[in-house]
């Protein structure tokens, strides 16, 4: 390429201006993020690096949507590879014949660059196809103009690059030309034109390329393309907490309880908002959104970003954004916040590693603890938790009512056992789950496993209170239970409730309660595999398994219940389309068991339809809440399918009548 001091000067000036704009905008983002509260404990570095490689270089989550994933992978790797052409062009502008240090400009690199020009162009084509033709639901509500503009930028950058390379081949026959097949092909097409025309094409393309890149650069720190910069730090700054755990707050010391204003959010919440790429994957998997509710996990990030920018910028300038809406009740309505099931589908799916639940529960904490504003029926559950240690108003059952017909010792009566069987309120206080509990106890007894219960000394683990945002009540219950457990020297806890399981395993350690915690399906799978249980009677049923969110997504246990089912002779399993990581909440999570689902379709009815669509005779589950929701869904839909706990199915296949007679 010809170079001149003029070209060099203009390039320099443009780069400096664009760089300055870019830096200024980015600095604002940085200062906005710094408005957030800290500190946020971070995960171990190894884990964070592993995530970075998998998610950024490998696009693990992005690739879950094959079309969108592949196109994004093309564009992402294209940009990495084509960074070399940008550096090369800049270098040449200053010093003719300059090449990349070490690598130089061999034909092989030119071939790679051409390959990626082609792949990026294909990627842009696919993206246009999705927006114009296939139109997946998750892209509704995305900033469309921004999306087209960015695709225009990328396409423009590629086409100008291609033309300038072709021009260079015709004009200068550079050494790398033999490798550049695509550019060579375009060069062939323009080679016949007069040299002045070719030169014109080259110059326009070259300057165009540079200009588009620089304009694009100044654009990056706004809107969704900011993820080009924020994504890597967002993944590298992953929080040090198991998925299922919420962060505790120090009620005595805290100046505010929960989030009602941007400065109550952590800087990580803010970084999340700036890392959101508006891909809508969270919206697509959100059961509340899918059933027609207001909740929109993408909007949680985009609206937070807008609000933060507005309020934060004013604050950084020493003032207040006077007419800005309140964060809670304004930017996000109370209905929006109360619709979340804390099911974790969005968190599981988000390629930016954002955490939606923390933000929603944070704002709920403000509503419950500072404003005492909760949906009425949730308030009843909270009052009952406070007065009676369980959230089921009007249950009228004792915690040991289910033991009729089976022999279980309580620790208070001097029962000593390897395991504490933690029953859980949802099981003990709802008759439907009594059969599951008895089946479990019988199966354990068959395997010679000793388990005792706490009986009346059990209180709710506090999971519903914590997810409703009443951290205060949760901590009271947690302390009370930890005291009881430690008084009896309990070390191993077995529970049939994934919510209790999650709370013991991931949250009680925050308050010094360290136990070995097993979910019943994990122990049952182990017992079957160790041949301590021999399911021999055929149970000729087609079964589909519904993943409880707090067993699956929050704790990664998808296999244990399936292994138990696989061990039962006669059982044929079929999967629902939305299973395992993509499992669809039953509708009870996040304390929503206590709220009537009145907006749009009912989540448990929709989930029942998913199960029925498989043609299975039984929908198996391993959670007392899922059981109640599915029973209700089946009744409402008058469906033929029957909800059963995994333990009930296993009980049926043990020779010699482990099964309950009335359990049918």
């Amino acid at each position, binding site marked *: 390429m010809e170079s001149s001091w003029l070209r060099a000067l203009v390039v320099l000036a443009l780069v400096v201006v664009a760089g300055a704009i870019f830096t200024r905008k980015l600095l604002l983002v940085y200062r906005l993020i710094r408005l957030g509260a800290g500190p946020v404990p971070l995960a171990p570095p190894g884990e964070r690096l592993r995530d970075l490689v998998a998610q950024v270089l490998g696009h693990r989550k992005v690739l879950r949507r094959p079309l969108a994933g592949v196109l994004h992978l093309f564009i992402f790797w294209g940009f990495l590879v084509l960074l070399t052409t940008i550096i090369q062009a800049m270098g040449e502008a200053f010093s003719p014949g300059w090449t990349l240090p070490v690598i130089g400009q061999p034909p092989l690199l030119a071939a790679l660059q051409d390959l990626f020009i082609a792949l990026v162009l294909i990627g842009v084509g696919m993206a246009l196809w999705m927006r114009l033709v296939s139109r997946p639901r998750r892209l509704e509500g995305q900033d469309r103009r921004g999306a087209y503009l960015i695709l225009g930028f990328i396409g423009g950058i590629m086409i100008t690059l291609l033309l300038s390379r072709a021009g260079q081949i015709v004009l200068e026959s550079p050494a790398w030309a033999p490798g550049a097949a695509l550019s060579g092909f375009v060069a062939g097409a323009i080679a016949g034109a007069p040299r002045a025309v070719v030169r014109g094409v080259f110059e326009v393309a070259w300057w165009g390329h540079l200009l588009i890149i620089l304009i694009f650069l100044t654009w990056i720190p706004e809107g969704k393309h900011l993820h080009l910069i924020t994504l890597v730090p967002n993944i590298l700054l992953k929080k040090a907490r198991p998925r299922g755990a919420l962060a505790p707050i120090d009620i005595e010391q805290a100046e505010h309880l929960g989030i009602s204003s941007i400065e109550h959010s952590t800087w990580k919440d803010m970084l999340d908002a700036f890392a959101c790429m508006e891909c809508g994957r969270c919206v697509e998997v959100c059961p509340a959104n899918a059933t027609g509710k207001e909740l929109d996990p993408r909007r949680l990030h985009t609206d937070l970003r807008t609000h933060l920018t507005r309020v934060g910028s004013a604050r950084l300038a020493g003032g207040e954004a006077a007419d800005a809406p309140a964060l809670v009740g304004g930017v996000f309505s109370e209905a929006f916040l109360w619709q979340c099931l804390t099911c974790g589908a969005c968190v599981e799916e988000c390629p930016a590693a954002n955490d939606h639940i923390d933000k929603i529960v944070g704002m709920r904490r403000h509503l419950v603890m500072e404003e005492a504003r909760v949906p009425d029926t949730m308030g009843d559950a909270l009052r*009952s938790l406070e007065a009676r240690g369980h959230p089921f108003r009007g249950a009228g059952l004792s915690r040991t009512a289910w033991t009729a017909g089976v022999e279980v010792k309580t620790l208070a009566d001097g029962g000593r056992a390897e395991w504490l069987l933690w029953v859980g309120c949802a099981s003990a206080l709802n008759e439907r789950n009594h059969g599951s509990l008895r089946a479990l106890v019988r199966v354990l007894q068959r395997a010679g496993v000793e388990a005792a219960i706490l009986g009346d000394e059990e209180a709710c683990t506090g999971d519903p209170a914590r997810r409703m945002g009443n951290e205060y009540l949760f901590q009271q219950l947690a302390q009370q239970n930890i005291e009881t457990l430690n008084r009896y020297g309990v070390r191993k806890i077995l529970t049939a409730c994934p919510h209790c399981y999650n709370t013991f395993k991931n949250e009680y350690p925050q308050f010094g309660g360290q136990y070995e915690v097993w979910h019943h399906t994990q122990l049952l799978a182990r017992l079957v595999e160790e041949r301590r249980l021999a399911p021999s009677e055929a149970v000729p049923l087609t079964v589909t398994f519904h993943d409880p969110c707090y067993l699956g997504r929050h704790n990664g246990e998808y296999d244990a219940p399936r292994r138990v089912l696989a061990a039962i002779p006669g059982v044929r399993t079929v999967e629902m389309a939305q299973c395992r990581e993509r499992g669809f909440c039953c509708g009870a999570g996040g304390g929503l068991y206590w709220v009537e689902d009145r907006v749009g379709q009912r989540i448990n009815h929709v989930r029942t339809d998913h199960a029925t669509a498989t043609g299975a005779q039984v929908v198996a589950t391993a959670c007392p809440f899922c059981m109640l929701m599915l029973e209700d869904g089946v009744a409402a839909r008058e469906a033929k399918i029957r909800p059963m706990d995994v333990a009930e199915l296993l009980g049926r296949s043990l020779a010699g009548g482990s099964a309950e007679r009335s359990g049918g």
Partner: protein
Amino acid sequence: MDIIVCLKQVVDPELPARDFAIDPATRRQVREGRPLVLSTYDENALEVALQMKDHQGAKVTALTIAPQATVGDTVRLALAMGADEAVVIDDPRSPELSGPARARMLAAVIRKIGRYDLVLTGCESADLVERLIAPLLAEELGAACVTFVARIDAADGPLVVRRQADEGYHVVEARLPAVLSVTSDEANRPRLPKVKDIVTAKRKPVQIWTPGDLGSMADDGGVEVRDVAIPQRTGKCEFLTGDPAQQAEALALRLRELKLL
């Protein structure tokens, strides 16, 4: 405006039937080891008082007669919900007192407190359901009385209250001081306390008096409980014999005999 709300502590009415027992000596419900809660309608009465406080300002005093050892949570809840102070009459025998005796004692306390414009009670208590206290109290205090109040419509001029009637409302005007018995209503759903208020409630004043502080009182109410029984529900199981057709016939006949068919 000074409002006194009478709060009764009762054994959780939602307790499983298994845990309901009667002490043969006192012929009262056994309270030991049972969770104690605010009597259902008393929470509504407290809510009505707190709404008055929110809307036009009032000083709300929570009053309870109960053995002091068991009273903690009740008083703390009332203070956390927003009552300004509490008065506890520490009387170990209070669960055994008859309605009229309790009304007389409440009246004595209220007279000792001195300043009051309104006294609110629940329309019935969750354990005894005598439905006597408010009228007797009004009688003792020489105050006006309105029962079954759903909400207070106005109190800046004369007191205007809505009283629940069979299929609608009575709007009643009353002079002060007045005793109102409160029923539950959409408008007086008890609020949840804010955590901040739970914490500050621990610092609010609680006065503890004994019955001796109230001066002498005839303390039998003229009635005495002689016997209390828990209804016994018994089940009986009959087996029908024969082949399925005979069983079906026998079943139909039995059901008809029992007038179920």
